């Protein structure tokens, strides 16, 4: 019976062509193949975010009733706490997963020709994911969200020339208020998804088109010695297994460490001591703080922003620098730059938390 249904669909949708394509897809098998999973894990976690996000959307009310609606979700609606915890934890896991994916792609030099656009779209997706995180964080409007957003918005506002202007548009006024919540809500639920999904589509299509990149050392070996494994069913099964593990990890975290809801934000009270953004913003946050201590006044802020922007720009254009598939000084330099970037990020994040103790 299944065969008849398949045939009916195939005659109208050309499924046969798709399955022929899929059957030819192979995944390179080498010592670093483990990192190939992380793009798929990121995709899975994003799908979970959409799912849990839609569920939260059923009861969330942006604007003046934001906190009350989240309070109801957490304490009144059955299992609302679980869905909210899953969404919050998954956001963190998602960004972690994207970072692992990005750095593993970097060190495997998967940005080289012909995969540069995959790299560029990936960076854009990372940027959008950070915005997802930032905008979502404010939505409960508890003390932590409110002040973390207030502090976080100082980053764009210290951009030279356009800083204050763009921040006011983003914020809906000179201060974080109900208007901000509604703007961030529109951003989080409509604007960012509309930008993210097509970019994701392009990113995924490019991976199918070009296949997985192999690390330079593996690529240097003769083709006859290189092993591959079919995507269907072998790698796909393992991919699914990794998704399953991710789901389990998420279920454990969300169940055992449910997400807290603090007191409702009181805009008149001062910021609590040690206020800080979430961990994925901690690195730039701390860098700015450190530079602010070295260079007084506006110079410090601008220097901080510039440093970070320059670093990010270099990161984005790395394919143009290290585009050739030839072992050489550029390849090595790019590698060291990557090591430096990871180390700097980890250290500044750690120092940022250390400073709060």
């Amino acid at each position, binding site marked *: 019976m299944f065969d008849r249904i398949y045939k009916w669909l195939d005659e109208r949708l050309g499924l046969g062509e798709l399955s022929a394509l899929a059957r030819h897809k192979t995944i390179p098998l080498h010592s670093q193949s483990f990192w190939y999973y992380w793009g798929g894990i990121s995709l899975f976690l994003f799908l979970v975010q959409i799912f849990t996000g839609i569920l939260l959307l059923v009861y969330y009310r942006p604007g003046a009733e934001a906190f009350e609606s989240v309070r109801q979700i*957490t*304490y*009144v609606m*059955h*299992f*609302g*706490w*679980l869905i909210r915890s899953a969404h919050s934890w998954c956001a963190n896991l998602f960004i972690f997963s994207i970072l692992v994916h990005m750095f593993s792609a970097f060190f495997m030099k998967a940005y080289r020709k012909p995969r540069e656009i995959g790299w560029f779209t990936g960076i854009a997706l990372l940027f959008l994911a950070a915005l997802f995180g930032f905008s979502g964080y404010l939505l409960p409007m508890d003390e932590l969200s409110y*002040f973390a957003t*207030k*502090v976080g918005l*100082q*980053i764009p506002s*210290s951009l030279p020339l356009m800083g204050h202007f763009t921040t006011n548009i983003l914020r809906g006024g000179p201060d974080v208020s109900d208007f901000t919540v509604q703007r961030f809500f529109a951003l989080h639920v409509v604007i960012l998804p509309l930008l993210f999904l097509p970019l994701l589509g392009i990113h995924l299509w490019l991976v199918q088109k070009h296949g997985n990149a192999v690390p330079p050392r593996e690529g240097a070996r003769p083709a006859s010695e290189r092993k591959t494994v079919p995507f269907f069913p*072998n790698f796909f*099964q*393992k991919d699914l*297994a990794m998704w*399953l*593990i991710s*789901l*389990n990890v998420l*279920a*454990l975290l969300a*169940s*055992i460490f*449910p997400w*807290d809801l603090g007191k409702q934000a009181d805009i008149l009270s*001062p*910021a*609590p*001591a040690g*206020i800080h953004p979430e961990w994925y913003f901690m690195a730039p*946050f701390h860098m*700015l*703080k450190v*530079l*602010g*201590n070295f*260079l*007084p*006044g*506006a*110079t*410090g*802020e601008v220097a901080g922003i510039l440093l970070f922007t320059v670093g990010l720009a270099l990161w984005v254009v790395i394919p143009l620098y290290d585009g050739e598939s030839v072992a050489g000084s550029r390849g090595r330099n790019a590698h060291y730059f990557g090591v430096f970037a990871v180390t700097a990020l980890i250290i500044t994040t750690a120092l940022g938390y250390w400073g709060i103790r």
Partner: protein
Amino acid sequence: MNYPFWEVPFIGSGWVIGMIAIFHVMISQFAVGGGLWLPIAERKALREGNADWMNQVKKHARFFLILTGVFGTVSGVGIWFAIGLTQPEATSTLIHNFVFGWALEWVFFLVELTTIAVYYYTWDRIPQKLHLKVGWVYAVSSVCTLIIINGILTFMLTPGDTWLSVAGTGHEAGKFWNAFFNPTYWPGLLMRTLVCITLAGVWALITGSLIDNDKQPGFKAGYLRWTTRWLVPSFVLMPFALVWFLHMVPQSQRALLSLGMSTIGAGTFSQVTRLVLIMVITSATIVIITYYLAYKNPQDFTLAHATAILMLALMATGAGEMAREMLRKPYVIGRHMYSNGTRVSEVAGRNQNGYLQHSLWVNQNTSAHFAEGEAMYRGQCGSCHTLTGYRSLNKLLAGRDRESVGSLLTMLHEYKPETSYRKFMPPLTGTPEEIDALRDYLYAQSTPAPPAHPAPAPTLKAQK
């Protein structure tokens, strides 16, 4: 409290027991299940004259010897240390009640350890049939250790009406067997046996995943497939065992399950729900990985996969043990002794004569009032709460003024039938003065003093 209080920062002393015990259960239940796995696998190898199998069983026996002999014993003794320090009152009761049982247990432990060492080191040195018999001696002694410890563990949840009727009279020893074969003994034994069999399979998957498929094609698949069957009984029978177990728990204690299934309660309320959720999900995942990888694609089954299964089994086991612990609240020995060491029979007396009459260890370096409050806290609250860490009282009491802290304590003291706290907390005992001292102590701890300087402005502003 008759004993000094052991304060463990952040996690609380209860979790010291929890962590050691969960670790121990993963190994000891493997020891029991694996104790069956080894002679059965050896017999299969003998019957089929399969040298590959025999060799693999020997490798697994070595792994088994080291893991259980070292980590099993150390963690088992670790439990003794932990329970003696954390809950000496209950430990004392268990020892007095089951001293003969404990002694038997240790005899079997000695036999276990001796036979497993003999089993491994006499391999290929004594006739095969005799060697197999040594394996069976191990298996039997190991099963006996489970049979005995299960009695003591299940007693803690359901001592049974017979023992409860003589508790405190000095005639408890006469009801040893009633206490031992208490209402949850048999379902508990079934559940633990099922877990033992599963863990035998899970750990054998670990050693099996290391077989090099290129060197021994066909063997890895056969070995793994045979091993995965050990996980089947648990998945088929566990739901039944669980229902049976819950059925034998007295209704008054089962009430905890209905307290807060679907609401958060940052504390106990939805613990059991969450734990059930975890157990179901991790178990289903184990089924999927075991079937689709170990069984259907054994050649691709790696140590990483086997470890994933092991970790999932750890989660499921940990969740199950924690659920059992939760179910027993507010008692440490069901309907006899509360979690903080106060016996049900002592409550009236302590309310009359004072709780601190029995507190020999009171802080001498502060005011008497503060010391009283602190001693009350440590004796009656500290067994389940910390101030700033696990089940933080500061967090739970935040926002309450002195009067409302007092009303909460009054509610716990009066312990009226409709109070929902009854389902997981003991009554607060003591004289009104002692309870006031506790109130002042807790209020002082949970309410931060107003800051001397205003909180600093957001830290991004550059210094001028």
